[in-house]
């Protein structure tokens, strides 16, 4: 594409925005400058429609070392160690090419983590697709999972958890969010602000090709459409081997204190990384594109500035340290090239050799960007059609339980997580499905205790009620942590929504962010960072509003972490926490072909207290089994405990649908020696572990083998033949 032929509209800029650029520049931008502005002013880079809303989120907390604004949020995990984490979306690229889209999504979030000096130690993924009976959804799911595994497995970072949901609303627009957690000695942490006029700008890593040209604005800010064809040659290809060298090299450079600042190259490539470094440091930068190592000889300067070639980092180096930096990069076999220097101009100036080919005020690119007010309006009638009926109202409780366990949203995700290396690094003491949160010991890094990580967000419930649904996402994530005895240190989130220029989407977004805010305040958990992905509307209307919440927590005693499975015959089973189940928004309601238009309101303060009780029960020690009551309600949670433990149970509980299959935050199943269970604060004993069937008094009983067949068989069956 030659920009001369591509006026600002084709680059996604409105006429008003174009005028704004001319005003700030004091002239019309040339083609290169227009290309850079179009990316820097895209929703993806500028958060035009979400920035104001995000200011609502609480960002202060006792453990915070770096908050939003840096490449990743960082919290103090004690013993001089810091944990960096962030979740990011790669939805549109994954919809275009699921394998490379998902793989480069992982590569991108990894770079955000080591850009602050942390070694990536865990990946989690949050995925949304159409129903599995759709061939296209199966294809996207299959290849996105392969892509995530390919990158994480190859680079030696374990993928320890995640979630997958299948809903018709994602058929035209899948979601691929990836979260990474990293660890660093506190003194190795580094920021991205460029500083020191005269310091050298050094580009590390892969050569620059035509990957993802225009990707940031075209792929990330426009609704998918027919002319996707034309975008396709610009798919970004990931090279995890290059990145693994880059990780080791960057961490080594930081260990030796050779860098003044460090920044990854993500969306909009050199344009955004350089201008953001300059903006944070309140300096200018000169870049000579003719020095950038190219994969293709004949690239134009604008292409070099906006290329999204993967596996590249940008750092600022004092001239006296330059030789040491270049030597160390050579040892790690990482390409390192001086491409420019820090100036006091507060302009980003682009040279092609001696020729000045672009000159842009940094604040016009980064800070002084037009922000838009949302115009939220509550929809008067439902936005989403009812889901297809998949289960007959009259089905027996036993058949209903089996149908729920076999529903892909609840069924075991073993098909997914067995394609991920969950153990590399020797930190993982709870793998997927063995506990509600993944648990990573800190001992190998010289710390004490363990980290717990989880990622959650049931978009269907948010669709029913954006505010309450978002609150529930935070509560479920915190509850998953509580089930392993961990206290949340910080929260990251990815807001996946439709087109915010539409009033109903603006309303969903506003209410969801208010829900996140209130839940974070109630739990005292600060937001350390996140990501926003808007315009997720491919033909079939908007996706379910999907705020995805990731948390990192700390627990003191790794050897005493409960598991999901029942442990021993004779153990007493109880429900702790605060559980008020309802059918609204539940998986059962979905199977019955309905979608509620609200969720029961909830008492946040009471839920915060309940979470403290759950954590106390787990931390009390000696508790072998704890599992949160989530999708599919109490009956499904009990079944999961039976399946994982290979043991049956006899319980007596209320036998109505809502009590058995209803959902709602707060409930946790615990099991253990009777005296221990009975001693727990506010525990309601409901039965006993034993036998080979799950027997719910007055309701029916199902052999554990049948439960397992339904639970473990469902997703593989979708791929059979």
């Amino acid at each position: 594409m030659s920009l001369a032929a591509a006026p600002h509209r084709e680059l996604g800029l409105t006429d008003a925005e174009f005028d704004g650029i001319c005003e700030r520049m004091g002239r019309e931008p040339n083609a290169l400058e227009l290309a850079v502005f179009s990316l820097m002013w895209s929703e993806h880079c500028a958060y035009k429609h979400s920035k104001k809303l995000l200011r609502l989120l609480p960002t202060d907390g006792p453990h915070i070392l770096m908050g939003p604004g840096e490449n990743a949020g960082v919290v103090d995990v004690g013993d001089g160690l810091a944990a960096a984490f962030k979740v990011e979306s790669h939805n549109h690229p994954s919809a275009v090419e699921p394998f490379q889209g998902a793989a480069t999504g992982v590569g991108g979030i990894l770079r955000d983590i080591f850009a602050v000096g942390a070694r990536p130690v865990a990946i989690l993924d949050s995925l949304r697709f159409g129903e599995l009976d759709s061939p296209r959804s199966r294809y996207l799911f299959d290849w996105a999972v392969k892509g995530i595994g390919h990158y994480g497995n190859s680079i030696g970072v374990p993928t320890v958890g995640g979630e997958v949901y299948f809903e018709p609303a994602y058929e035209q627009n899948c979601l691929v969010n990836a979260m990474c957690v990293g660890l660093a000695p506190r003194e190795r942490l580094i920021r991205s602000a460029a500083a020191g006029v005269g310091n050298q700008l050094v580009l590390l890593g892969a050569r620059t090709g035509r990957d993802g040209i225009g990707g940031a604005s075209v792929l990330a800010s426009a609704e998918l459409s027919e002319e996707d064809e034309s975008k396709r040659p610009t798919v970004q290809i990931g090279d995890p081997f290059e990145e693994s060298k880059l990780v080791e090299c960057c961490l080594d450079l930081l260990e030796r204190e050779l860098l003044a600042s460090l920044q990854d190259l993500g969306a909009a490539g050199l344009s955004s990384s350089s201008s953001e470094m300059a903006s944070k440091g309140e300096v200018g930068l000169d870049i000579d594109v003719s020095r950038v190592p190219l994969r293709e000889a004949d690239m134009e300067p604008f292409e070099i500035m906006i290329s999204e070639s993967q596996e590249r980092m940008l750092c600022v180096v004092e001239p006296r340290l330059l030789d040491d930096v270049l030597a160390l990069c050579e040892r790690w076999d990482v390409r390192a090239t001086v491409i420019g220097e820090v100036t006091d101009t507060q302009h980003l100036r682009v040279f092609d050799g001696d020729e000045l080919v672009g000159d842009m005020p940094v604040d016009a690119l980064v800070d002084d960007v037009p922000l838009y007010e949302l115009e939220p309006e509550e929809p008067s009638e439902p936005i989403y059609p009812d889901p297809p009926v998949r289960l007959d109202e009259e089905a027996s409780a036993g058949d209903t339980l089996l149908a729920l366990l076999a529903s892909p949203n609840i069924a075991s995700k073993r098909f997914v997580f067995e394609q991920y290396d969950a153990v590399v690094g020797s930190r993982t003491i709870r793998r997927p499905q063995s506990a509600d949160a993944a648990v990573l010991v800190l001992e190998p890094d010289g710390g004490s205790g363990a980290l717990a990580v989880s990622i959650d967000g049931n978009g269907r419930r948010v669709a029913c009620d954006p505010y309450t649904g978002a609150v529930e996402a935070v509560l479920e994530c915190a509850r998953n942590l509580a089930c392993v005895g961990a206290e949340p240190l910080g929260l990251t989130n990815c807001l996946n929504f439709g087109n915010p220029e539409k009033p109903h989407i603006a309303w969903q977004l506003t209410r969801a962010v208010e829900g996140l805010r209130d839940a974070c305040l109630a739990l005292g958990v600060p937001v350390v960072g996140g990501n926003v992905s808007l315009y997720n509307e491919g033909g079939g209307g908007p996706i379910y509003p999907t705020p995805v919440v990731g948390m990192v927590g700390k627990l003191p005693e790794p050897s005493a972490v409960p598991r999901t499975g029942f442990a021993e015959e004779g153990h007493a089973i109880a429900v702790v926490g605060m559980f008020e189940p309802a059918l609204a928004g539940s998986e059962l309601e979905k199977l019955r072909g309905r979608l509620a238009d609200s969720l029961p309101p909830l008492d946040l303060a009471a839920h915060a207290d309940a979470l403290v009780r759950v954590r106390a029960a787990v931390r009390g020690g000696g508790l072998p089994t704890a599992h949160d009551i989530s999708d599919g309600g109490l009956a499904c949670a009990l079944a999961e405990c039976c399946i994982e433990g290979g043991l049956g149970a006899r319980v007596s509980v209320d036998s109505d649908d809502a009590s058995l299959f209803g959902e709602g935050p707060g409930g946790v199943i615990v099991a253990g020696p009777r005296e221990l269970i009975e001693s727990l604060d506010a525990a309601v004993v409901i039965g006993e572990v034993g036998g080979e069937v799950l027997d719910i008094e007055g309701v029916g009983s199902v052999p554990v083998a049948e439960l397992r067949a339904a639970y473990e068989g469902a997703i593989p069956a979708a791929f059979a033949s």
Partner: protein
Amino acid sequence: MRARVLIRPKAGILDPQGQAVERALPALGFEGVANVHVGRLIELDVEDASEVPQMCERLLANPLIEDYEVVELKEEAA
């Protein structure tokens, strides 16, 4: 009849495999190697060779990142 499909990374698309081979060969004493590209080779018996390009579009190749070339071979595979 037997058909052969040659699948190559599209021009300009990163080809880490080709790069790796290009770096490895000189180390083994093979000089003057350049432009190495690694792709896939698919050979199959088909009734109607005219269908093979559609097979490539729909399954065998990934048109986003790969080019393909179909060669018709006379003999069937043993």
